[in-house]
């Protein structure tokens, strides 16, 4: 069925939002940090840094840290989601630096 320009644009935007979620390695553990406006304002950028640094320090190549520019769950920002193929998504809310380290340690342990 033919799609209107508006529909196509909507589809494109949706795909752009999901693009960052599409990781080559299907077995990878994906740590998705909410990086919408509210996330950033609540410190999500620094949370992502903590996780990226931990993952890097442990050379955990199976853990992919990704940011998601979509705005959702603004009241609970910063939000971090753990996606593992075949498992339910785990969502952490109001993540601070200590919690971020803990999340990183967990996924690094799981990846081993």
């Amino acid at each position, binding site marked *: 069925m033919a799609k209107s320009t508006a529909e196509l644009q909507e589809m494109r*935007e949706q795909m752009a939002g999901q693009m960052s979620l599409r990781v080559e390695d299907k077995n990878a553990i994906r740590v998705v940090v909410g990086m919408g406006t509210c996330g*950033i304002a609540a410190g999500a*950028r620094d949370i992502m840094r903590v996780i*990226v640094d931990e993952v890097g320090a442990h050379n955990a190549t199976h853990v992919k840290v990704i940011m998601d520019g979509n705005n959702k769950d603004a009241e609970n920002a910063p939000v971090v989601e753990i996606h593992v193929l075949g498992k339910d998504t785990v969502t952490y809310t109001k993540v601070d630096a200590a919690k971020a380290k803990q999340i990183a340690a967990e996924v690094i342990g799981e990846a081993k």
Partner: protein
Amino acid sequence: MREISESILDILMNSERAGARKTELELFFSEREDIIGFEVRDDGRGMSRETLRHAADPFFSTGGERGAGLGLSLLKSEAEQAGGGMKIESREGCGTRVRAWYRASSLDTPPVGDIGLTAELFLSGRPGMELVFRCRSDTLCRECRTGAGGGEAPDSPQTVCQRVREMAAEIIHGK
């Protein structure tokens, strides 16, 4: 936002969502004019006149439930609060330019903060994204770039982020 470089990340995420392949970021600081700020230029889909008219309204978003519509309005109010302002230019199908400036001496002006981190996170996982970073002061103008662009050989994202940190530090000295 606590840092100008956090606002920059938010504006860069808008460019990504608009399908930009090439993004230019300029950080400027003029001691003479007491102004500090940034400009993001992208080659994304741009805005219709109607969207442009409302883009900086609080809660206006074309992103459906994925957009909160707070990014540009927040940037505008923060910049104005600090004696500056925000301007958007956009052409549908061509791209968008967002410029925000703050009075450098205003107490309401956030520190620039870790702009290297902003560049690093923005580039990570976006191999197709070309980023041009420019720093401008009263006496200096410097530039580096990454990604698949024409012209001279691009630097690796790691090199660019390092250069972004160095260049910004050189230009804003402590702001």
